[in-house]
């Protein structure tokens, strides 16, 4: 399972016998990505998407993202449109982490993710 950025609960993936793969850039020119993310977006996110577009991660069974900044979220969205992907998941995170509701919300999201992971 390939994943973008932080917040993805690798613990749940490991116990489900899923190998989490943190998707990274290549330090090579991202020559495929500009038609999908213009230059404003961060080089790392663009490079990650470039790896998907170039087929470097074609061994993955699925990809996921934990709600993080807008840059990898855009790479995630473009990936789903342009790279054949069997399974995907967007894990929501509490925006206001100091709110008294944050823990309950996150617990619910993790439980939902575990169910989705079990089904796949």
């Amino acid at each position, binding site marked *: 399972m390939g994943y973008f950025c932080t917040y993805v609960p690798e613990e749940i993936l490991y116990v489900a016998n899923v190998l989490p793969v943190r998707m990274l850039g290549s330090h090579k020119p991202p020559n495929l990505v500009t038609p999908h993310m*213009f230059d404003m977006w961060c080089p790392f996110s663009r490079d990650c998407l470039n790896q998907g577009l170039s087929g470097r991660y074609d061994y993955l069974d699925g990809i996921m993202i934990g709600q993080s900044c807008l840059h990898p979220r*855009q790479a995630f*969205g*473009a990936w*789903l*449109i342009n790279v054949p992907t069997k399974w995907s998941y967007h894990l929501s995170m509490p925006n206001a982490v100091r709110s008294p509701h944050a823990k309950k919300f996150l617990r619910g999201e993790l439980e939902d993710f575990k169910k989705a992971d079990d089904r796949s």
Partner: protein
Amino acid sequence: MPRNFSVGNWRISKKLTTGRKIDDEKLARKVENTYRSCSYWAKACELNKAVPAPLDEKTMFSLYVLGTLEKSNDDFADFYEKLLYPEVKDRVANKIAAVSNEQWRIIGDSQPPWGFLNVYRYLEKYGVVSAANLYTFSLIGWWKVNEKGDLVPYPTLKEQGITIKDRDHALRLLAEGELKGKLMWAPFYGAKYKVDLVNKIAKQWKIDAGIIHLNRGCEGTAQHQMEVKNGLAKMGLPVMTFEGNMADEREFDEARTARMIDLFVTETLGLKKVA
């Protein structure tokens, strides 16, 4: 003042955290007004499907401002329902065009470079009208996708036959409208969702081409802009992009953009200046 303010506390306390008493009748009226403003702005935008378009996007930026400032305001809700909507309807009935020599209808995306709205006036010289934009339609407008898959204005409470019963009901309706109707949040729901909505708009509003401002000034509305471009291109529409910044004039090259428009409009669309 309670440290952990929440809607739940608000409901029970009868008073705001400021200690002021809540006027429930006023709250109900304000929620009804918000529905009226958001729905009738969408209805006015819907009228822009007409050929020629009764509104151009540059004018729409001025007209949506009241809603951005205070959509629950009695006068503003009345403005959208009783003044603007009938006037735009009248323009459609009498074929009064926003751009009198309309030849091509374009769709935009995200906010414009605010310091350079004359870009739209420049396009008018070629008879090009910017008739639609997900951002402009939905920053204030509430919409829904109907059973046929078409984008239609979200109904007012009156049209839904709903009378607000109490404070809880008013707040739930407000949340429902914001969550279900406000497509402005589409960029945050994923690329495919945004692309599908923009494609629907392009089809329903009879759009001929896209001119997309790659907006370095708003990461939110700039989400998935290149996929929007690709989506329009897959529909067979020619699309031009130009980089700029809605908030920082130093990041916009007016002369270069005008030159790109010239090339796109003359070479790709095959138009000549008509004004």
